[in-house]
């Protein structure tokens, strides 16, 4: 939590804009790995079926 500039804390309260990567942001590493694995699976199956189509032409 960051505090407002006109709060009761005076000089120590306001520290400017909060850091974007503060501890409140959830970690999406697991989601990222899952999404990329799914994406890789889709890309690999799509290209293998496409190559099969091209070879059989």
């Amino acid at each position: 939590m960051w505090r407002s500039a006109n709060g009761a804390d005076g000089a120590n309260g306001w520290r400017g804009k909060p850091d974007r990567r503060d501890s409140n942001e959830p970690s999406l590493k697991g989601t990222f790995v899952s999404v990329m694995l799914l994406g890789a699976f889709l890309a690999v199956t799509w290209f293998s079926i496409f190559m099969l189509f091209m070879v059989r032409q």
Partner: protein
Amino acid sequence: MHIHRLEKIWLAFGLSMLFVFLLTLGISAFARGNHPPSAHRLTVDPTKVNETAPFDNPGVRQIGDNEYEVVMTAYVFGYKPGKIEVPAGATVHFTVTSPDVVHGFEIPGTNVNMMVVPGEVSHMTHTFKKAGEYLVLCNEYCGIGHEMMKTVITVK
């Protein structure tokens, strides 16, 4: 709006995949002319197939330099003409219809695989690069003799 850095990466990945797939589809359809076998408006009266040209005289016709048109009917339980011979390297345009029920027209190991629907004329083009015997079979259940329904294309 704040988007997480990792979220940006997977969105970009997904969008570029979609772009590549659609681009491939577009090139295949518009530049190379790949269409489904039913992509036209040709119809024929299914009760008069054997009297309607060109199906009144099914067979192989040479239409160009090593290019052939094969007019066929798929019926219960066979294909007319029963014997097809083309030279190796021939490009064959198949024009097929059915006078009775729905049939299949598949040449295993190639991209030729279409549904033959009574009243509709199906088209497919294939280049037979290698010599050999190519099996044509029905892959739509059409009745008691379905498993007997086949023919052979001989490529010399």
